[in-house]
Structures are given as C-alpha cells and as structure tokens.
C-alpha cells in the first residue's frame, strides 16, 4: 500500500469517494465540457461569476480517481477567486503536475492542491489531473465548446 501513497494520497481518495460540488447549475452562464480521448473521461463544469468573482462552481461527469478528485478540489479552490486569480492558479497547478515546479512567478497559493504534486511522476496521468482545469479555463474564456486535453 505504501507504494501508492505518492499518488493516491488520502485527500485524493476522500474527494474521489465523496466529490464536493458535484452536479450542475441551472442557467449558469459559463459552461464547458472536457473530454480525455485516451480514457473516455468526460467532465462538465458550470460557473457563475458575480462582479468578476467566481460565485458558484460545480462539475459533473465520470472519470478516474485522479480526475474526479482534481475536479472536486478545483471547485473548492476556485470559489471566491477572481478570474485572474483562477487563471494564475491553473498555471501554477499545471506547472506542478507537468514539471514538478516548486516556485511560481504568479505567487498563486496551491493550498490543498499540493496533494497532486505526485502526479508529475506519472506522466500517463497528467491529463487526468488537468482535465477539469482545462475545462474550467475554457468555460471562463466563454469557449462554450468541447475541450480536449490534447
């Protein structure tokens, strides 16, 4: 079991078992769907913005533990953030899971998201961790289409 700990940390397993902010938001202005063609994972993200700040955010879809927990923790992290803060956090998160980047020029705080730091040692799983983020990024850009991780 100890072999799995750098990837499947307890916080990830918990958010996989009980995803937070799962569901849809009726009438949300910002919606996008993401698809990972490698594994068939799909995620849909719903966002409402009030005065430039993310007010409500939910996700729906099916996927592996990494993609589900990532979507769940992402919604928790983004609530209350400005759009600029949200994008900076996405960059910071992506740098961490792709390159194991320690420092951020943006200065965005990862907080709980640091639990995904082990993902960079599993290149095949990076797309699982970033799918929800790519999707929310598209939603925030009002790119209301199908997003892929390619």
């Amino acid at each position, binding site marked *: *079991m100890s*072999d*799995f700990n750098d990837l499947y940390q307890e916080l990830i397993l918990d958010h996989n078992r009980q995803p937070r902010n799962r569901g849809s938001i009726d009438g949300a202005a910002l919606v996008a769907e993401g698809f990972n063609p490698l594994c*068939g*994972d799909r995620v849909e993200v719903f966002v409402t913005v009030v005065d430039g700040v993310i007010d409500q955010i939910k996700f729906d879809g099916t*996927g*592996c533990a990494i993609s589900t927990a990532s979507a769940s923790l992402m919604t928790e992290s983004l609530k209350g953030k400005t759009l600029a803060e949200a994008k900076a956090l996405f960059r910071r998160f992506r740098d961490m899971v792709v390159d194991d980047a320690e420092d951020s020029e943006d200065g965005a705080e990862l907080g709980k998201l640091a639990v995904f730091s082990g993902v960079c040692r599993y290149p095949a*799983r990076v797309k699982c961790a970033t799918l929800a983020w790519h999707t929310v990024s598209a939603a925030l850009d009002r790119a209301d289409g199908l997003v892929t991780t390619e």
Partner: protein
Amino acid sequence: MTSAIGRQTETDRGHTAAGFDVLAVRSDFPILQTTVNGKPLIYLDSAATAQTPSAVIDAVVRYYNNDNANIHRGVHTLSVRATNMYESARAKAAALIGAKRPEEMIFVRSATEAINLVAQTYARDHIKPGDEVLVSEMEHHSNIVPWQLLCEQTGAVLRVAPMNDAGELRLDEYEHLLGARTKIVAVTQVSNALGTINPICDITRMAHEHGACVVVDGAQAVPHIKVDVCELDADFYAFSSHKFFGPTGVGMLYGKFDLLNSMSPYQGGGEMIRSVTFEKTTYNDVPHKFEAGTPNIAGGVGLGAAIDYVNGLGIEAIVAYEDDLLDYATQALLATPKVTLVGTAAQKAGVLSFNVDGVHPHDVGTMLDQDGIAIRTGHHCAQPVMDHFGIPATCRASLAFYNTRAEIDALVVSLRKVQEVFA
C-alpha cells in the same frame, strides 16, 4: 509479490511435466528477466504487443551485422542474401496460416495497413453506391474506420452485426443482415477487447452464399490458435508481426491468389512495377505489385525468426497451455470479490477484460504498475464494445504462452490491494 515469478510453483511445475516447460520458455525472453518499479515484470499486455524472444532479437542483429542490403535489386552477394531471407520469411508466414503459396502473402507495415489495403484496392474496385459492408460490433477500430472511409468514398453503407452480452457474435442476426447488397464482410477472428473466438467458417460460408468477400482480422488469433486460411475459406486475412513475438512495423496480408491477381495496385513506386515510361507503366506480379518502396526488411526477417520460434515450441502445445492458463485466470478472477469479467464467451483466447467495482480502470492500471504488473486499461480501440456494455473502459489482462499461474496469483493479490486502498 517477489515470489510470483522466477520461481516455480506447484501448478507451474505441473505444466513442465505436461510437456510445456514455461520456465524454460521464459528464459528465452530477456525482457521477462527485468524489473519494473523494483518488482519483477509481470507482463499481461501481449494483446497490445507481445514480447520478443532472443531468437528474434538476434536474427535482426545478425541481419544488420552480416546481410543488410536492399532486396530484389542488386546482383551482389548481400542483396541476394537479404532477398532470400526476406522471401523465406514470406514463405514461413504462408505456411504458418496455411496459405497455398507464398505469393498470396503481402508484406505491409501492420494488420491495420493490411485491412486498409483491401479497402482501397479490392473493395474500392467492387463497391457501388448502396452496396453494403458488414462488420461486427466487436471490431477493433482498425476494422471499422477503413470501411467507414470506403463508404464515404463510394456511397456504400456500413452495417453492424450485433453481439450478445457474453460478447459472442449473434450469428442469426449476422445471417439476417447478409443480402445481395453485401459486398464485404469484415470480422475479427479473436476480439482484442473480449477474447471471443468467432466462428469464421460459418461466417465465410454464409457470406459466400450471398457472394460477399470476407476479410478476417487475425491479429489476435494467430498468436493463440492454429489458423488455416483455406479451412476458414477467408478471402483476405490480416495479422501483425509484433503481436506474434516479432518486430514492430511488419504486418501480413493474405489474399486468395486470383483475387490478388485481379486487384488494382495499392501504392505506386519502386518494386511494384515491371516497367515505367512516361506514357505507360506496367505492374509487377503478385505479391510485389502491392509492395511499393523498400520494406522493413529486418522486421520481415525477424518475423521469420518468430515463426520458427513458435513452430519450435509447437502451436498445439501452446494452445493447450494457454487454454489451461486462461481457464485458471478466469476462475481466479471470478473468485475475486467485486471483480466483474467483461466478455464471457464460450470460446475465448488470450484476453481477460474486467472491472473492479468502484475503481476506474486507469487507477487499477497505475496501481498494478507499481507492483510491476503491466495491463492495458481503456477502451482498447474498441469503443463500440465499451458502448455495448455501457462502460467507458475496462482493465485488460492479456496472456501469452510465457505467462504463468503464479503471475495470475500475483495479479489477484495486487487487485485485492487496490480494493483495500479504495475501500
């Protein structure tokens, strides 16, 4: 875990006594002596690509060290040697699947290319708008998409013969779909996602009654069962080298001689011509007509060595050993709580698709990898199969004659560990 392989178990000793010495066979495969993530490799992904024995690796090295030259061109010694080695591999491939003559075997770069070749030559010449191409629901994408392309090009219609929930072709529905408009039937002999063995003899007989031509995808069959294309009465039969313990980048297309002889060329270039002028070009004879350009000569030589290696073990002994191992693995997974088999056909070869309740296949795959166990997870290039069962993906453990009961035991131990983590 470390005791899983490299050490005989009582059950594996039984196989040694029965005439198939799996531990000796394993020692022929250098990669099976390696470790992954600090654990002895347990390779259960042979349906994706099979491992290569030293005999094949050495043959490729020997070819480059001693014989490397272009084929069918030079009068010099190396060119003659390389040509003989390559043509000898063609003859071995013909004998392997019971083709009447080596000229019926065309070298291509993959089983996928073999199917595309038939679609773009024979089929394109014979298909008219409104004609039908019939595939089965359990096909690999490589036996679906070439036909979809053909249909787009010609105005033909793609029809699909369904399977039942065990993953078996519904032969009655298949027969019902056959008609005067059916020009091509394209079907796999063994399903890569489910392991189902299809009744090709029945399929070809019914298709031929309606005048349809039958293209068989044999990529997953040739490594596991005795194939005789004449007995199957297949018009075309495709398989690949790398799923048959040979190098990647080589596939073979069998076609009945008269069909091949009547077909338009595939690609144009060197080797496939007899004479070229700007006014008129005449084509080479079968099979060279379909082999434009310098082929993967070393790969072909390697395939020849792989065929020699498998013949040395004996296909009957391999089939008996694998049937027993598949049965053992099936029982082991059925006895593992919260594991569901996907694909439970009465006739199967080489493949165990399964899901672990509440755990996504990719998480299972990543966790097993930490134990040195290589399985495939995903849709296995067979999304319609996944759609049939209403699932996005499965875990797939696929077997070859170098796998052992001890490795299956290790798989089950690892799966229980996965369940503990996700409980």
